[in-house]
């Protein structure tokens, strides 16, 4: 636990600073009310009303997120393997070759199905 205590200390410092900045922001500046100023910015035209919850996004982002999760998980396995590589010996190498090959197969599939293309 002691290893994490300093992080807590730093977090308190940084968090305090950030919260403080956000909190005093309204008080440090002038206040000149202007209706147009309080609209969302849209290059000067009337802002498009945005649905609560953000509306619907292109599916593309979801696919990217999914792919991120998949590969991030792969990384989770690569790190311990890399750290313990010397002790695992050839076994570790064989298994990781299989693992990466499998991932690459899925990767190739995604690629060919245009999962990696943007538009």
């Amino acid at each position, binding site marked *: 636990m002691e290893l994490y205590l300093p992080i807590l200390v730093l977090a308190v410092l940084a968090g305090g600073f950030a919260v403080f900045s956000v909190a005093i922001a309204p008080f440090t500046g002038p206040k000149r009310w202007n209706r147009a100023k309080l609209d969302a910015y849209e290059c000067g035209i009337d802002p498009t009303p945005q649905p609560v919850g953000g509306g619907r996004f292109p*599916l593309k982002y*979801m696919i990217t997120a*999914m792919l991120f*999760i*998949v590969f991030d998980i792969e990384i*989770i396995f690569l790190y311990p393997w890399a750290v313990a590589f010397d002790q695992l010996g050839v076994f570790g190498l064989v298994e990781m070759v299989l693992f990466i090959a499998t991932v690459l197969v899925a990767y190739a599939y995604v690629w060919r199905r245009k999962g990696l293309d943007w538009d």
Partner: protein
Amino acid sequence: MTTHYLVLSALLFAIGAVGVLVRRNAIVVFMCVELMLNACNLAFVTFARQHGNLDGQLIAFFVMVVAAAEVVVGLAIIVTIFRTRRSASVDDANLLKY
């Protein structure tokens, strides 16, 4: 000490389980399931510390993987039905009944 973590994990699990049962939006239901899985992870890690072996932490790894796979599959399914029906409420899914 570990009891607190266990209570927390049980609480999270219960929240998740209740959420699955009472919420109507498929995505929220799904999030509740994920919450349950993460409650399990917490329990595993806690027990790993309690027992002084690494099995629990290891399991947490795998659970994460599984949860990730589940997210991928689940969202794909939910998005498909959402596109069809323009609604993610599980109450609207009512074609199958006896």
